């Protein structure tokens, strides 16, 4: 037997005005799940504890709760000492029981055609991965868009694409899904990462539906403009000042005389090239100081992310071919990105690449960096969705930041700039940005650090604190170090 002390959220609408966390200590068997701890509390300490469960084997989706903030199925998640068990972020009925029905009822259902069309194997194969949803609503609990705008949510979008792919269904699911908020998804990936059935809703549902919407002429006008710009210029933003690529040579040699630590191709991305070139130049300084040789082919174009996220796939293959060929022809074996969106796209949406993609945070932590001066600054870090969830990079940026400033954490939530939302749904983007501004305020940090041009650009509009890229703050650390030496 093991002894576990846990905190459980308690709230009885008949008696309480607000919920509270209560500590319980129970005995449990080795390998016990969160659900078994709840059973132990209910059976031996407090029978009034309300929680929902049924199958006990991860197949009915009744028992989802948040453990230490993360939605999980209580019956499958291993119980840990010190864990905090709270309800999903939905209307709480009592204790851990939330109102699931409002969201489940809103999920669409198949309306059969008059005559039966039996789906073919390839159609079944396309639908199957979308079918294992158990409507536990973990995804809805974490969806930022649903908090600030009208959006039926990830589970409902998953169902719309499932129906859209089914020849037996008689309705126009594309138009329905647009009405239900298809374009409000920021592609933050939070829904997918908490899904107990690992259903890739952003890629397999949202982006697919948006591609179908594109074929029906339902793409948002602002997104169409972006696609037209990419088609015309190879870039998703317009030139307003000298670009990064215009300011640097094709090869940047490391400072000093030693052998380069490594040679990297650099994929700069539209935003750092044309909106935040100064930041990209800071990054080059940090890399050169740390002994990297950087190759920067000038023919590189947009990675295609703004088109993929918005379902506009016409010229995607052309962009991909061009980018791959650009780096391949130079014999580059590692291509570094510093834009989280480009990195995620190159890693996840490009197939069979002849080179490896590494984010700049991975590069700097893998090879190690010269210690910068520690600046007397308290900083908070905003996890870019496409870095944290798109590339699974969480620790590396923190490791770098702690070398130069003090870090105070805040929850990892989307800032609202992704998925075409900033351009297509500016009010929603602003609402999410505002919340991020409030989160930043709460940390009491002096500055905000991030590692994505979209996040940096967007958050800067919603906080009074300076927003800096990781490499910029590292460069400040180096400058301070040099100043002290003099």
């Amino acid at each position, binding site marked *: 037997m093991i002894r576990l002390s846990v905190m459980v959220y308690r709230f009885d609408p008949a008696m309480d005005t607000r919920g509270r966390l209560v500590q319980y200590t129970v005995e449990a068997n080795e390998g016990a799940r969160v659900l078994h701890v709840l059973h132990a509390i209910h059976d031996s300490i407090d029978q009034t504890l309300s929680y929902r469960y049924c199958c006990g084997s991860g197949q*009915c989706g009744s028992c989802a709760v948040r453990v230490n903030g993360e939605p999980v199925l209580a019956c499958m998640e291993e119980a840990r000492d010190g864990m905090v068990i709270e309800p999903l972020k939905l209307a709480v009925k009592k204790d851990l029981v939330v109102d699931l029905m409002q969201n489940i009822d809103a999920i669409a259902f198949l309306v059969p055609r008059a005559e039966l069309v039996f789906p073919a194997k390839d159609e079944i194969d396309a639908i199957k991965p979308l079918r294992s949803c158990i*409507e536990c609503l973990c995804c809805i609990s974490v969806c930022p868009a649903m908090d600030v705008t009208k959006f039926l949510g990830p589970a409902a979008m998953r169902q719309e694409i499932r129906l859209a792919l089914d020849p037996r269904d008689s309705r126009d699911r594309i138009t329905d899904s647009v009405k239900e908020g298809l374009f409000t998804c920021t592609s933050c990936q939070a829904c997918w990462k908490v899904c107990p059935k690992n259903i890739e809703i952003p890629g397999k549902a949202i982006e697919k539906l948006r591609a179908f919407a594109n074929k029906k002429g339902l793409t948002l006008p602002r997104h169409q403009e972006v696609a037209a710009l990419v088609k015309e210029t190879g870039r998703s933003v317009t030139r307003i000042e000298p670009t990064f690529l215009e300011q640097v040579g094709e090869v940047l040699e490391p400072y000093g005389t030693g052998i380069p630590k490594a040679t990297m191709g650099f994929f700069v991305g539209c935003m750092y090239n044309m909106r935040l070139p100064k930041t990209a130049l800071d990054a080059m300084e940090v890399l050169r100081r740390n002994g990297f040789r950087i190759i920067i082919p000038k023919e590189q174009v947009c990675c295609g992310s703004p088109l993929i996220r918005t379902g506009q796939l016409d010229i995607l293959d052309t962009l991909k071919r061009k980018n791959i060929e650009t780096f391949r022809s130079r014999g580059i074996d590692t291509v570094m990105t510093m834009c989280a969106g480009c990195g995620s796209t190159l890693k996840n949406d490009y197939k069979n690449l002849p080179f490896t993609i590494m984010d700049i945070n991975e590069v700097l932590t893998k090879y190690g960096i010269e210690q910068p001066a520690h600046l007397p600054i308290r900083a908070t870090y905003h996890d870019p969705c496409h870095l944290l969830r798109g590339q699974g990079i969480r620790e590396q940026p923190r490791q770098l930041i702690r070398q130069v400033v003090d870090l105070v954490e805040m929850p990892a939530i989307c800032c609202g700039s992704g998925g075409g939302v900033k351009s297509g749904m500016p009010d929603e983007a602003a609402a999410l940005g505002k919340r991020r501004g409030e989160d930043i305020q709460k940390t009491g940090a002096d500055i905000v650090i991030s590692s994505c041009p979209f996040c940096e650009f967007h958050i800067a509009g919603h906080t009074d604190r300076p927003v800096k890229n990781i490499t910029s703050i590292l460069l400040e650390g180096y400058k301070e170090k040099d100043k002290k030496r003099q």
Partner: protein
Amino acid sequence: MDCHVLVIGSGGAGVRAAIEASTYGDVVLISKTIVGKGGCTPMAEGGYNAVLREQDSCGIHFEDTMKGGAFLNDPELVKILVAESPQRMDDLIRWGAVFDVTADNKVAQRPFGGQRFPRTCYAGDRTGHEMMTTLVERLKGLPVETLAETTVIDLLKDSDRVIGACALDEKGDLITITADSTVLATGGGTRVFDISTNSASGTGDGYAIGYRAGAELIDMEMVQFHPTGAVFPYDARGRLVTEAVRGEGGILKNVLGERFMKQYDPERMELSTRDVVARSIATEINKGRGTKNGGVYLDVTHLPREQIENRLPVMLEQFLTFGVDIRIEPMEVAPTAHHIMGGFRITQRGETTLPGLFACGESTGGVHGANRLGGNALADTQVFGKRAGEAAGMSEKRIKNIDPRQIVAQRERLSRFLNGSVSPAVVARELQLAMWIGAGIFRNANDLRSTLAKIMHLPASDLKAVSERNLSECCTVQNMCLTATIICKSALLRPESRGAHVRTDICHAWDAATSPFAHTYISHSREGIERRATL
């Protein structure tokens, strides 16, 4: 609240019945859980038996089912099952079910135990979930009122006739629903055993509720122990490891590495019927050839990885969560109480012995005899769910008079719980252990009698509800005690080993085909065992 048809239970049978009944009038579907999440259908993994190929036939499906059921099945019900199962499969497909298909776009089928043709249709190893999702989608488009998280505590009667039910809503308030006809689709009850595959709702409520109202139950001693339940972690013991694992080629080995099914059924090996495989595993474990966690090995490591990933994704995911990668290491399994073959005596239209009361799915008896074939339960839910829903729907509209004394009695029962003194969890625990030890896979009269005595002494009438919201737990535990009693009594009524029911204290010369006995029966007013007509 009044309606034409009241359906109690929201698993595969209940929802199917509600769908069908809605053609005839207003239907109320009442669920202890959330519709689509409760019952055992969403957890059913392996498949749905239906004759779909020319090489197969309903005659063979009938024979397999009768033989598997040790010839205790009601042949007329079995004929209906095999004949209508393909039609009900068509319904599901029409409504959007996503079953696996073959390269030539036909519903794929795999072999299951005790069947001479691979006739088990499947959606990976989440077949029941696929069906349930489809049924709930269908239900959404129909004018059926659902009462979720509402616990029926007893049926309402107007003299002999059932006229609805009284229930507790989620806050514990007593409500009544009158109906021209009532369908019990409350599923099974193997939660009365310590080790069980059932969901939290498999507590035998329907058997108890129907019994108290006076309906007759048959063959309640016939409890299927599924051969393969998980043994680790301890708190999740009994969790179903689908027969599809063996259907796909999984092999059983004892701790010495011996493929022991050779000793017990060399012909059918791992794909013998469930009663045989469960007893073989139990014997191996009892003889000390089990693992230290008290199981035997079930091994699929010789199968291609893609086959495991595509055909057994839920198994793969569940075992990975518990630290076992079934692609490279064997599972540990042991028998677990799974399904109750017995239940309400029904006609072909799903009528019970009480006027106004219908039943379908696992709450009924007769379809599966003494041992159910894997894949026949999901088919049963659809075939007899439709039949019961249809018959209930076609019944006449009537004027219903609730006898106020019934409501008074219920209020008294509930107020006793509020003033009670024993934790229902404690009583449930004692009951489950007693049943596992004394009424499990191997039975004898002494153990059955002492188990019965133990249950009788459990303080089922002195259970404590700490608040109104806890009243339903007390009712559930009372139902568990009554269901367990019925199982033990029925087991004593059958003086033979037959199918899943093994009496180690009785030797007899006959086999299943020549047994002189037919159904056991039990109700308020009578109990006994039927003799077979001359064979």
